[in-house]
């Protein structure tokens, strides 16, 4: 039983890590129907920015809490700026182009950003400091779940709730929903579609930055390639939950994380991804729009 619980917690940890990245994917997909392959790279850039700024501030002798907060803010600001720029440069000129063209543009952007960071910084792994201290009162459960794991879990939940509120109750959220349902119609009723799309990219990229900082602190190291691997998994999770749906992305991530964890625990970690992708295929066969996605009924 204890083993089972341990596996549940490791699955939840992994799931919440996927979720932080998956949220950005699902938002962008929901609004312009594009698999944003460069999203993983934004996450990587967020982690790099945080590391660079933190090191610099540290050198100038700022106290640790201030360094932490400033580095996190810098990561968010620059990731959002990158997300915004990528959309302006690589996707906006392609509105109205054939459906697959933005996808190729996204793949190109992903390759470009990876190599840009590799050349400007380093191909090697850089150590990333542990940001979250381990208080003594959590020691009894430390063998099951760590403080960082709990923090990531908590942040994911908070972010999901805030995002849902934003989309449900604010004007911007309403404009986003309108744009995702019908871009032309939204434009006709006075929604500034370009701005809405930009805002979506900025929010999604900020989330990626938060993810970048927390996850890098969890794994303790970064290099230019971390975005790609995490990106594919996170995207899978977003699809599993029903792409375009915010709670869906989180649920999909948890399902994926738990599946991998149980596959490792009871079968073999060599085949964890096989189980993950097989589950994806199975779920999509029975629910073709994902767990929480609405099945679109096509009217003719």
């Amino acid at each position, binding site marked *: 039983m204890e083993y089972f619980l341990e596996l549940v917690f490791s699955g939840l940890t992994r799931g919440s890590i996927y979720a932080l990245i998956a949220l950005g994917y699902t938002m962008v997909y929901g609004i312009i129907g594009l698999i944003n392959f460069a999203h993983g790279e934004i996450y990587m850039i967020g982690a790099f920015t945080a590391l660079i700024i933190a090191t610099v501030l540290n050198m100038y002798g700022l106290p640790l809490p201030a360094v932490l907060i400033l580095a996190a803010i810098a990561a968010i600001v620059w990731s959002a700026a990158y997300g915004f720029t990528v959309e302006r440069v690589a996707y906006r000129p392609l509105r109205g182009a054939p459906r697959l063209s933005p996808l190729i543009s996204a*793949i190109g952007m992903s390759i470009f950003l990876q190599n840009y960071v590799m050349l400007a910084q380093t191909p090697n792994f850089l150590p990333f400091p542990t940001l979250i201290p381990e208080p003594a009162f959590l020691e009894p459960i430390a063998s099951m779940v760590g403080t960082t794991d709990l923090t990531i879990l908590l942040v994911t939940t908070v972010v999901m709730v805030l995002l849902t509120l934003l989309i449900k109750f604010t004007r911007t959220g309403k404009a986003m929903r309108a744009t995702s349902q019908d871009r032309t119609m939204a434009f006709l009723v006075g929604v500034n579609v370009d701005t809405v799309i930009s805002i979506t990219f900025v929010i999604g990229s900020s989330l990626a930055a938060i993810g970048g900082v927390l996850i890098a602190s969890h794994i303790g190291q970064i290099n230019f390639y971390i975005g790609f691997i995490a990106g594919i998994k996170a995207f899978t999770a977003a699809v599993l939950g029903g792409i375009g749906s915010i709670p869906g992305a989180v649920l999909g991530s948890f399902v994926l994380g738990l599946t991998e964890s149980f596959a490792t625990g009871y079968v073999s970690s060599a085949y964890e991804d096989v189980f993950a992708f097989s589950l994806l295929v199975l779920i999509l066969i029975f629910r073709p729009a994902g767990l929480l996605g609405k099945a679109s009924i096509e009217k003719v």
Partner: protein
Amino acid sequence: MNVITIKNFRNALVTALWFMFLTFPIMVIKVNTTENLIVWRWHNLLYVGATAFTASLLTALYRQYRDRKRSQQQQEEGTSRVSWNERFFNTPAIARPVCALGALFFLVFPLLFSTYQVNIMTTALMYVVLGLGLNIVVGVAGLLNLGYVAFYAVGAYTYALLNMHYGVGFWVALPLGGIMAALFGILLGFPVLRLRGDYLAIVTLGFGEIILLVLKNWSEFSQGPGGISNISRPGLFNIQLSMEATLNYQYYLTIAMVLLTIFVINRLQNSRIGRALFALREDEIACQAMGIDKTTIKLTAFALGATWAGLAGVFFAAKNAYINPDSFTFLESAMILCIVVLGGMGSILGVIIGALVLILLPEYLRAFSDYRMLAFGAILVSMMIFRPQGIVANIRQSYRSSKDGAP
């Protein structure tokens, strides 16, 4: 006239400042966390600013040029806009000699260039076959497949394993590889083809990953990450060939393969199945209403695409004489997809050009050494921006009724 207005100038300045801000942490600061050293590279900021400024001005100029051209075209009403490739194919006086010259060039290629050039040309031609195969699925039938490389792997491993265990030769394995890949295509296609658009894409991506993982992990079956070496190269009536002759022989085999592929796909596009596939891409529901069996047609497309990947896989294993799972990653699928989209979806000529460009480009970018892949990514993005429909837009066959009303 092209003029750079004050407004252009101001925009360029803003762009430059924005990019200088954007790239500041990554380009300017380099930290050495082990020794807490910081290197400030302020000169990089200057380069970024200058590049962004120039790029912005150039884009503005290009936009002016494009708009002017458009308004000119609008003035010349009545002359409908004909794409260059349509004009090209409709003018035999140009098309025939150019095609003949192209054919001649490929024929004498090994005589003119070094073995290295022949070798990468062979690789590029193999990607032409792969691209044409994926084109059936993506370009013609409109089914986005992100796991195409799985079928390529099936073909390659079919030959490699048969050759290792039973000494099966290339020519016997070639059809077997195709058949195996087609079987896998049907196996995957059957349950997932009712998925739409990007859901299908992600399932195929997952399938590709599953195949890759099985190849990596099931060492007893596939030799694992160590791979399979000493695969026999294609034989020519048991004649011993020198290294150079082998490469040339492989080159001509691949040319033959490309010609066969073009022939088959060309015939296919104009066949009943091809018409049905085009219809399917345009409107699934209308297509069903016309009485076309959606599932069968989709499965056919999937299996056909897979067959070509399998054949290319056998070629691949034979050419390299060594394979391991690293050749069949998702990036490879993405590359083949890029070939199809960049070349022009659904267009045979486009796919050929796309493959040659995308495979040969990184080879010739070697001069840029470190900046090779950076340039490749940038070129991919800019090609899409400037020609989103691909290098060669597909020409749909059109039929005109003659004036006297005869059909």
